[in-house]
């Protein structure tokens, strides 16, 4: 299994490829290293803000004598991230990697293949968790003047943080895929399973950490009276976080005991996964890519299906939509953010609270600003959905088709903009819900939607530009085209910066005039100018990029 793990790491993290570039193509090697540095630098301001926030949280918690809550929160947040966002990594690496057709016929046990793939996802998750957990470890350690033992055990805890949540989501995926494999509608069931899991995690988390209505004061008194009250309360969302936090903050034998408990839970999680994997991994895997044959088309049906024609741009948009709908991982990643909002809004209705306080607050905001808020929501969904930022990358090795068809790169880009706008419009039902709850007029709702479409364009065009400059086409499972694609991160950073500029300009216009019209003109006009600029650069460089890209 260790040899298999080594091979998986080389393949999945491009170690062999990097070595080859270092030897034969140093320019490309330096490019890859430079890109990694660029990512770190571009994320530095957000990271700095997060560290500052941690520092403030520590100061408040230490004032209450409960500094350990900083560590517990970081473990809970990291674990939830792994639990929710690790899901699609797991499905993709466990079930859709191209190397599975080579590995399964080899004399290896299912648990060996599963174990090697689990560790690959674990390392990916450690990279995800690091920026959330390590600042908390740093802030707590530095403020406490912690010794060597703290830092050593801190590193071990960091390495262990994703182990249990990843094992849990892996076991869920094993069960889901073995059930789904029995059905004809595999893709649909996979998607439903993923959204159910996401909903269950959010619901459970809110339910466990909810404060009983009407008992808020008593509840707070109880928590503050208990030395570990805040830590225990935070850890209700994810109980092992208590062991991790106590292992780092209690000191002496208690630290060791908690560390051993955390280690023991992690070992048990992995053992359970391997046991489950040995039993059911192949049930979901073998035959999983087989597709039920459809009924043969009659002459009339075939004639009906061949009669209609589309423009090239629409043909490309339609191709992308079909790929999205038929690839659960793409659909989940594109819709997860939009789906989370109604789930979060619905939770208070089930847990005894209500939306009344939130609605009361929103009613105090002028109607025109509310509508712009709806538009901004659509824009932010376009920013967070990786539709545009992975648009060229998702074509992968099939990009050759786009290179040989007699459709100009500009027309193809128009198709991709169309597709990204359609994805952005998935957030329309959420805006419609807001319009209903806040009693907007029809015209107010339409203004919000139209403005939302315009506001989506800077994110779409800048993300397309970033992806075209350096598309990631050599992925071996579809998840990598989105989750291991640095262009998606760059797209969010650059798009976020453009939106921040629009926010500053809009705020300035509103404060200066106090009227909605100048605000709309500045924000939407600014969005149109930025989009036109990005689109102009895109179509200018696209012909050369289409010629130069060699797969």
């Amino acid at each position, binding site marked *: 299994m260790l040899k298999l793990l080594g091979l998986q790491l080389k393949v999945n993290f491009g170690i062999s490829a990097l070595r080859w570039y270092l030897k*034969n*193509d140093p320019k490309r090697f330096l490019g890859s290293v430079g890109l990694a540095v660029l990512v770190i630098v571009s994320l530095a301001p957000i990271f700095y803000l997060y560290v500052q926030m941690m520092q403030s949280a520590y100061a408040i918690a230490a004032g209450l004598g409960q500094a350990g809550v900083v560590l517990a929160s970081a473990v809970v947040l990291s674990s939830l991230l792994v639990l929710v966002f690790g899901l699609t990594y797991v499905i993709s690496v466990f079930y859709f990697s191209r190397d599975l057709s080579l590995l399964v016929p080899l004399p290896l046990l299912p648990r060996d293949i599963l174990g090697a793939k689990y560790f690959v996802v674990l390392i990916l998750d450690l990279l995800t968790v690091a920026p959330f957990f390590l600042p908390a470890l740093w802030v707590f350690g530095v403020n406490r003047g912690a010794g060597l033992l703290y830092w050593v055990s801190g590193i071990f805890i960091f390495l262990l943080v994703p182990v249990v949540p990843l094992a849990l989501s892996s076991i869920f995926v094993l069960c889901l895929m073995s059930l789904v494999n029995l059905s004809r509608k595999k893709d649909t069931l996979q998607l439903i399973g993923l959204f159910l899991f996401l909903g269950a995690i959010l619901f459970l988390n809110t339910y466990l950490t909810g404060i009983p209505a009407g008992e808020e004061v008593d509840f707070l008194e109880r928590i503050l009276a208990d030395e570990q009250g805040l830590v225990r309360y935070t850890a209700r969302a994810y109980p092992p976080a208590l062991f991790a936090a106590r292992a780092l903050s209690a000191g002496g034998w208690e630290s060791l005991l908690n560390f051993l408990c955390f280690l023991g839970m992690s070992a048990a999680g992995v053992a359970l996964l391997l046991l489950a994997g040995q039993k059911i991994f192949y049930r979901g895997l073998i035959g999983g*890519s*087989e*597709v039920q*044959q*459809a*009924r*043969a*088309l009659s*002459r009339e*049906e*075939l*004639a009906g*299906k*061949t*009669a*209609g*024609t*589309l*423009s*090239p741009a*629409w*043909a*490309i948009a*339609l*191709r992308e939509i*079909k*790929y999205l709908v*038929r*690839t659960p991982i793409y659909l989940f990643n594109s819709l997860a953010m939009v789906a989370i909002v109604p789930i979060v809004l619905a939770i208070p209705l089930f847990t005894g609270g209500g939306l009344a306080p939130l609605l009361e607050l929103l009613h105090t905001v002028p109607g025109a600003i509310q509508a712009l808020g709806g538009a901004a929501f659509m824009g932010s969904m376009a920013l967070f959905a990786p539709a545009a930022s992975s648009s060229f990358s998702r074509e992968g*090795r*099939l990009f*050759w*088709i786009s*290179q*040989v*068809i*007699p*459709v*100009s790169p500009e027309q193809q880009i128009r198709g991709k903009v169309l597709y990204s706008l359609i994805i952005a419009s998935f957030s329309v039902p959420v805006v419609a819900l807001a319009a209903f709850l806040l009693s907007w007029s029809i015209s107010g709702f339409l203004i919000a939607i139209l403005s939302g479409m315009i506001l989506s364009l800077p994110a779409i065009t800048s993300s397309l530009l970033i992806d075209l400059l350096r598309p990631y086409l050599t992925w071996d499972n579809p998840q990598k085209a989105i989750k291991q694609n640095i262009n998606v991160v760059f797209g969010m950073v650059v798009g976020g910066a453009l939106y921040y500029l629009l926010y500053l300009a809009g705020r300035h216009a509103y404060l200066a005039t106090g009227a909605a019209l100048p605000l709309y003109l500045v924000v939407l006009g600014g969005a149109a100018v930025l989009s036109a600029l990005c689109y102009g650069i895109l179509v200018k460089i696209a*012909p050369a990029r289409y*010629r*130069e890209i*060699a797969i």
Partner: protein
Amino acid sequence: MIEIANLSKSYLKGAVKAVDNLNLKVKAGEIFGFLGPNGAGKTTTIKMMVGLLKPDSGSITINGFDISDQPLAVKNSISYVPESPEIYDKLTGIEYLNFLGDVYSVPGAARKEKIPALLDLFGLSGVVGDLIQSYSHGMRQKIVLVGALLHEPEVYILDEPMVGLDPRSSNNLKNHLRERCDRGKTIFFSTHILEVAERLCDRIGIIHQGRLIACGTMEELRGLAEGKETLENIFLELTE
């Protein structure tokens, strides 16, 4: 119809010469077979002809258009079948053909007439409503060929088109290509199946280590390798 002049392409900063100063002309209405051992430069040449690779130097003119200056005009003049049938596996066969019909601007009436005929030719009528994901390698090759024959370009550029085809489909393809050729179309294809090249091609070019080492009709090639009658023997002697 196809004119390649002083074409060169190298990899690893010139360390590996994939195509070395290639010169070649293929006339309208001709079937030209492009042969060579593995790694000789066949696919690299074809990829440069269809715009998938940028040459280091030289020019490629197809149907009177230069691939560097007028790439869209060239792409409108050709049909290309790649070495490996990697296509959109999340589309059904008919969706893939309609997509190609849209991007090559094939009118609806022409599609209605040609698609059923081509599907029958390759025995794909029963599966055209299925996702390409469910197709075998041979079926994928067939749907790629149907897509390539859907519109009526002047030039067909086919990289190993017979690989994966059953004997009947292979025979049907050969007849279909000859028919199109008789209508004045040009066919440029690479193959390892020497019998096919010998029987089907009007002229044959042999590339070895990036250089065109022989080019002509079967008679002319026999003259280059004395005492060798079959294309296999000629090929073996010339590429030794």
